[in-house]
């Protein structure tokens, strides 16, 4: 049980927030932040643990969002079923893109470029195809009932997205402790050495891509339920690819809490910068950018990584001083 204790604690703290905070603005901010954290956690499975940096996770966010939106708006499918279908479609898209890219042996920047290209192609297709509502997008009918996955209160949405984030944290932790996860990290560290030890690198990367895509697709499905609207620019836009990779990189790649911490910090920073700069257009983005540069310069392993380093150093010093104290007493 010790394995999941930090996750339980973190989620419990976040779950307590609506008890103290009733402002819809703050809750809305947290819902969006957690949605980004979920998308980022998807990226983190493939990019953080597997070292395969995708620049096109919007492909999965958008596929999830469009699948559930189309099923609901055009075919009257139940929203919960649509949600599940969206996740499955995202996973399938991950399997297709991953299958093509990894089979072709694309690594590092080539992989990044190909994923970016796939997302862009999907964005252009979605902005012209009739089934995706072309340039207009898709509106989902307002129906504020739990069975249609819509809620009156922001707090209910907050608990739903928090549950999804919690599930993604647990998935990351389970992967960390599994043979699959050990092999995935080995592929990240050195693909040739991993293969010499019996790791089928292509299969492992593909598996990670499918899980990763499914999680990010879940964020897309949630977006549709929350805003009841999707269009090509939102679903497949580059902004989502960047949000999905930025949050775990700032928070700490290849760590369970990286994406969550990253999303909370990055989003608070964005809002904070807006508050400080007020009406001057663009200044908040400059502050935001400057802070990102500083974080990457001084904490290349992200916030969680930096904290772990500080803890390790502090812990060692503590152990050392205790040892000298013991020796002094004995001396």
């Amino acid at each position, binding site marked *: 049980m010790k394995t999941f204790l930090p996750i339980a604690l973190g989620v419990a703290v976040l779950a307590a927030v609506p008890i103290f905070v009733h402002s819809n603005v703050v809750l809305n901010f947290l819902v969006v932040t957690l949605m980004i954290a979920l998308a980022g956690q998807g990226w983190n499975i493939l990019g953080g643990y597997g070292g395969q940096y995708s620049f096109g996770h919007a492909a999965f966010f958008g596929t999830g969002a469009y699948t559930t939106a189309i099923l609901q708006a055009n075919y009257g499918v139940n929203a919960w079923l649509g949600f599940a279908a969206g996740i499955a479609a995202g996973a399938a898209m991950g399997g297709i893109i991953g299958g093509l890219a990894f089979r072709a042996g694309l690594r590092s920047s080539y992989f990044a470029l190909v994923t970016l290209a796939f997302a862009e192609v999907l964005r252009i297709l979605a902005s012209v195809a009739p089934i995706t509502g072309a340039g207009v997008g898709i509106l989902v009918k307002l129906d504020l009932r739990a069975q249609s996955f819509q809620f009156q209160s922001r707090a209910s949405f907050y608990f739903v997205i928090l549950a999804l984030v919690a599930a993604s944290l647990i998935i990351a932790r389970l992967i960390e*402790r*599994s*043979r699959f996860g*050990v*092999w995935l*990290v*080995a592929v990240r*560290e*050195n693909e*040739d*050495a*991993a*293969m*010499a*030890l*019996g*790791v*089928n*690198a292509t299969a492992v990367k593909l598996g990670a891509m499918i899980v990763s895509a499914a999680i990010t697709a879940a964020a897309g499905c949630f977006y549709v339920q929350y805003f009841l609207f999707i269009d090509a620019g939102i679903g497949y836009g580059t902004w989502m690819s960047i949000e999905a990779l930025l949050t775990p990189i700032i928070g700490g790649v290849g760590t369970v809490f990286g994406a969550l911490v990253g999303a909370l910090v990055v989003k608070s920073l964005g809002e904070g910068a807006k508050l400080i700069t007020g009406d001057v257009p663009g200044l908040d983005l400059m502050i935001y950018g400057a802070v990102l540069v500083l974080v990457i310069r001084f904490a290349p392993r992200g916030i969680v990584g930096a904290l772990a380093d500080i803890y390790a150093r502090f812990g060692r010093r503590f152990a050392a001083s205790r040892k000298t104290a013991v020796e002094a007493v004995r001396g």
Partner: protein
Amino acid sequence: MAEPLLVVDGVSRRFGGLLAVNAASLSAPAARITALIGPNGAGKTTLFAVISGFLKPSAGLVRFAGEDITGEPPYRLARGGIARTFQIVQPFAGLTVRDNILVGAHLRHRAREAALAVVEEVGREVGLGDVLDRPAHTLTVSGRKRLELARALATEPKLLLLDEVLAGLNPSEIRDIVPVVRAFCARGIAVLMIEHVMQAVMSLAEHVFVLAEGRIIATGSPQEVAADAAVIEAYLGHGAATKVRNAHG
């Protein structure tokens, strides 16, 4: 008589205009240490890459435990029981020593606890028992060589391909590692080693193959090979064999 565990039959490997390995044949029996020696650039590492599946041969066959394994990918060969180390050590630098060895141990043990138990055992066997929790990048050269051995060993191989595990070590470190290698073969593992440290080859190997310019030019016991005229010429240049003989004259 049964076929040796590993049989390399007429393997060639061409890189464009360069014939790096030219119809080389060799064999390695179980529970024995076999050495592959030769001057720099002879094609030893290329031949290893072919045997371990990292390169496909241009011609020839590789048989392992009676089966044709030519051109199989490395991960499948590892599952079949062929493990290798790399001449340029390839640790998973960001991971601890324990997690490095764990990658290999997971090949035969899906459950984490079982795999971790193998890590402890293997770590102790190669002399890394005290540093399991250290990051791999903090190890010394000799520590990294041991780590290569440990990872390969954790896959529980039948055949271990060692590419210059002793290179870069000082004499006392070599003295420490030699018994470790000998212990593998005592457990029934076939060891095929590329080695430049002749002192180690002489004391460890029972059978030696000499590769020069892509061809096997001599084979036999270490003593036979060391006295072979073709081998001396390959290492020291044309006409060297006569000079050596005269000098000892």
